[in-house]
């Protein structure tokens, strides 16, 4: 049994609706869960809601963002405990565009699957600045975590959960970036971790210069293959011309951002 899930606070409910609906469109047989880290009465179509206390008790000092991030390993443990043997965490600011067959197969073969921010070294003039940015925020992106119900995965989740309870801040000079920098250590500590180096997954502003994203009607391709999902990290539908708030100078030339902004508005974003 496979499950997919995301985590949102109230202000990200439109994103949760979009990711759940787009995922269910390609995988109608897989249940999609949304963990809500604050109170809301809003319904989320195509998704089952989970309340935070069912999953974990965040440290009192944590902000909403830290709570949402730190809940990740606990949500995955909760899914394993409820009998799902393959679990997939997706960030809410994701749009699923085709089936996840390669990823689900990989989760079947390994305990944990992660995707790197870059799958090939950047070669442009900004390559070093871009790589240093990734070295500060983490080699692997926390926006996609695949887990299989095996011992190394359970050990990984236990360790990751302990770490994000202890430190889940953005202090890059200290080696911390929320839950994400901890992942750099995971392939060394827990053997059976697979790095999915597939350009079709986790297309985002940070790797767009290396990936040829083409949009023709309903067909979205990366380097000529079907795109699995785009991660609109830092995208604000109120400022659709700006690709991400993390790099305000990057502007958009790709139609996908406008399409995503429209989907979010339909889903209730202001």
């Amino acid at each position, binding site marked *: 049994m496979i499950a997919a899930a995301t985590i949102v606070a109230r202000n990200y409910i439109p994103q949760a609706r979009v990711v759940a609906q787009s995922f269910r469109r390609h995988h109608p047989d897989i249940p999609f869960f949304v963990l809500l880290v604050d109170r809301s009465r809003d319904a989320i179509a195509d998704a089952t809601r989970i309340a935070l206390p069912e999953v974990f008790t965040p440290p009192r000092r944590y902000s909403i963002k830290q709570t949402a991030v730190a809940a990740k390993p606990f949500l995955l443990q909760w899914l394993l405990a409820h009998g799902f043997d393959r679990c997939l965490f997706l960030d809410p600011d994701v749009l699923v565009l085709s089936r996840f067959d390669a990823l689900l197969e990989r989760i079947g073969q390994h305990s944990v699957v992660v995707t*790197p*921010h*870059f*799958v*090939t*070294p950047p070669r442009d003039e900004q*390559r*070093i600045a871009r*790589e*240093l*940015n*990734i*070295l*500060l925020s983490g*080699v*692997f992106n926390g926006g996609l975590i695949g887990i299989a119900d095996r011992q190394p995965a359970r050990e990984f989740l236990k*360790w990751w959960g*302990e*770490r994000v309870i*202890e*430190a889940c801040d953005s202090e*890059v*000079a*200290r*080696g*911390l970036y929320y839950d994400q*920098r*901890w992942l*750099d*250590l995971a*392939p*060394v*500590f827990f053997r059976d971790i697979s*790095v999915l*180096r597939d350009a079709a997954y986790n297309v985002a502003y940070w790797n767009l210069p290396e990936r040829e994203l083409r949009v023709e009607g309903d067909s979205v391709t990366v380097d000529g293959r079907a795109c699995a999902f785009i991660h609109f990290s830092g995208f604000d539908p109120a400022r659709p011309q700006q690709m991400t708030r993390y790099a305000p100078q990057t502007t958009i030339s790709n139609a996908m951002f406008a399409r995503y902004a429209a989907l979010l508005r339909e889903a209730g974003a202001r």
Partner: protein
Amino acid sequence: MRLAAATIASKSHLAHARVLAASFREHHPEIPFFVLLADEIEGAFEPEHEPFALVLLRQLTIRDLRGFTFRYTEQELSYAAAPYLIEHLLDSGFDAVAFFKQESLVSAPLRHVLALVERHSIVLTPHLLHPVGARRELAILQSGVYNSGFLAVANRAQGRAFLEWWKDRLERHCVHDVPNGIHFEQRWLDLVPAYFDDYGFVHDPRFNVAHWNLLERQTVDPCFIRFSGYDPKQPHRTTRYVARPSMAEIGDAAAWFAEYARRLTEAGDDECRTWPYAYAHFDDGEPVPDAARTAYRLLAPPLDPWSGESRLWFARYEKERHSLRSLAQRAVKVWKRRRAEKGTWYAMRVVAAATWKHVAAAIAATVSRTPGGSRGSRATRGLV
């Protein structure tokens, strides 16, 4: 498979290279051991009498070697040259190269480790193999998951691609700048699992025993020990980089350090330490300050860095930088006194003075136009 082993040292650390080379050859006499001298011989020692084959910087394919030796300090240079040395040995016909950092000792055969490079194009050794608590793990995340005290590269497509990439990053970015994500050549290695499939880790706890994992490994029977930051002149400390673990905390493992100190002395460490570093002076004999290396590395002025012109450029640059800084400090002071109007004026002057790069380029231009540079100062003063 034809394998080569190698390390890098400047003259002052030649005893370390001698000890490492001898210890490696004791267990692997069949594998040639190379030492890259990140320095000039200057008659200090006789290469043919050494327990290793000597490689010189000029034998490597380093773009703009004069700039490379200037940009980096003695320590940085001996780190930044690693991919060039490995590439050189692969080019000379070896199928794979095992690189070891100078401050280390091979204490048992490494066949199982060297065999990994037959299966993988890139072999890395992690600092830690198991969780050790958040505090120490954070320290590792600052310096890099993988330790650059050992790595092996095979002459295959991914090994070559890795070297090309690493060389490019180390051309200017092999410094200690943790807040910006750089820890010499080492932090870059964290990206290897993202870029390459054909890599392997050394999982043996007997390999790469060092201050960062000694608390867990002091009872192992080691095959490769790293004495990173160890100074025999400070025998109560295991490393100068961190306070713990102290020598008293590591039990019987302290004997490894004593033995290493003995071997260093036997290898002539006291004499080697007196040998001067060759890349320490401008052509006119004046010493090169580290700040000049940094300025040159970041700003790349169109000058021969070792020339008298360059020294003049740097002196001017420092002067401008200090006056800019004091101007900025004055602006802040004024601002704090809430004399907003005047503060704005100062702030605008600072902004108008443009970036360091602008200043530096302007100075470089005037210096190179006017040998001796006596007329350059007026032109640059206008910038501040």
